[in-house]
């Protein structure tokens, strides 16, 4: 296989004295969809926030495109193609839908490309076009998730980190969102790291998966193998 585009090596992270990550190592290869599953509090969100430099790794290394990024300022990463759709969507509530999308393209200067990408987002999510002048905070949960993904698309991600995009959404909306995630991966060759509690959905979309428990990777395997693994079926697929 090629070189990993994103790699964590023995990464630990702390909140004050609480250790949230106890030495995470993982590899993500260009173009693949990798999922991270695990129970509430396992450290999935912390893993993504540490990759993006919001939470500082206290030991270990995060590498992106072969370069150590764990000591860089988080705001330089989106321009290099590393983009996160965080847990809870974090829509700017008092910016309009359209302004939220603009913020996704904040670091870009190619006005024409930005306009084309905005049209693309409106094509993917027509409801956002209808509501483009409305404050982001007034959207429903599903619409906010669409906006969060649309905002990420505006940054033309090379690696897209998605934190529980299905959280709190109706099954139909979840399906729609997963379809679009799949199409982003297929059409743009975007590498995707998908954090999910909905393990069934995630493992069906991904090619590989990591299982997190209390800050450590306890299992990594092909998604298919994980789906068939009896321990996983019992712990995360509700059997």
């Amino acid at each position, binding site marked *: 296989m090629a070189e990993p585009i994103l790699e964590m090596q023995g990464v630990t992270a702390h909140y004050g004295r609480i250790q949230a990550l106890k030495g995470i190592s993982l590899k993500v290869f260009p173009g693949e969809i990798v999922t991270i599953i695990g129970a509430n509090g396992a450290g999935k969100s912390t893993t993504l926030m540490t990759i993006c430099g919001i939470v500082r790794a206290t030991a270990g290394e995060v590498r992106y495109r072969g370069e150590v990024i764990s000591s860089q300022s988080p705001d330089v990463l989106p321009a290099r193609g590393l983009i*996160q759709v965080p847990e809870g969507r974090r829509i*700017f509530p008092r910016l309009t839908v359209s302004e939220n999308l603009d913020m*996704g393209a904040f670091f870009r200067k190619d006005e024409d490309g930005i306009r084309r990408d905005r049209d693309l987002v409106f094509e993917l999510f027509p409801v956002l076009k209808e509501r483009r002048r409305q404050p982001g905070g007034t959207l429903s949960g599903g619409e906010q998730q669409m906006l969060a993904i649309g905002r990420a698309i505006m940054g033309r991600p090379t690696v897209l980190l998605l934190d529980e995009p299905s959280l709190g959404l109706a099954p139909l909306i979840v399906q729609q969102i997963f379809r679009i995630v799949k199409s982003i991966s297929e059409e743009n060759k975007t590498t995707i790291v998908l954090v999910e509690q909905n393990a069934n959905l995630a493992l069906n979309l991904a090619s590989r998966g990591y299982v997190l428990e209390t800050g450590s990777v306890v299992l990594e395997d092909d998604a298919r193998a994980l789906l068939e693994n009896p321990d996983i079926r019992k712990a995360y697929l509700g059997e």
Partner: protein
Amino acid sequence: MEYFFQQFINGITLGGVYALFALGYTMVYGIIQLINFAHGEFFAAGGYVGVIVLSFLGAHGYMGTHPWLCLAFSLVLTMGYCAMLAMAVEKIAYKPLRRSTRLSVLLSALGMSIFLQNGLMLTQGVYDKAYPTAFVQGGLDIGGVRISIMQLLILGLTAVLLFILNALVFRTRIGKAMRATAQDKVMSALVGINSNRIISLTFAIGAGLAAAAGIMVGLYYGAVRYDMGFVPGVKAFAAAVLGGIGNITGAMLGGFIIGMVEIMAAAYVPHGGEYKDVFAFIILIAVLYFMPTGIMGENVDDTRV
């Protein structure tokens, strides 16, 4: 009736100055939840730098030939100077405390205020410094209401600055980034916004506007003093709270209301002129007591920063 219109004009003029001054409080609060006690010092520094530049130009004879050009020049220079001063204050006194408790930053702001005020006193002395005002004498009579050139100048300048600020904050890419940073610093970092730069810029803009207000007050009253930032500062702060602190439109509105109340109270309340400074404080206390989020605070959500 004419008397009322006269007072109305006076009220808007004073209100515009408070509005410009209040914006710095509200913008800084909006972005880092700090009540910047040192903000009044940028107003005072503006008043002083303005008169220093004008006097310098006067000494070289330019005030006599091109007074308006001189004023424009000193305004730009002063706003730039105070913007840089504010960025320095932010970097030295607030940025290192970004992760500390709000109380420590507040105390640091208080210390900065005392430091800057004393610095001004030591370098410029304790006495009033007179503004050259000969070029803004005269006025217009409109149906018995007198508008002085000075008032026209202040009103015009205030309108232009408020307009530019609104366009900047609500129309430009940087303005959107400012509002995004105020709303969610983690997410703004995740879209590539450098929040340190945005915070620094916010201080600069607030101080620039306060500096312009300082020059206007210097021109209006004909003089400045080292402690001139204090009382108007509390009134501008009252204006920001009245408008809903963090809300830009609210601060503008609050400024005009405080200015108007002060002038009207002085005009119509018996002996009002003697204790006109009290009214802003009464409003401040009433707002804090009865509607702590201010008139625009929670209802008109989308104009918060």
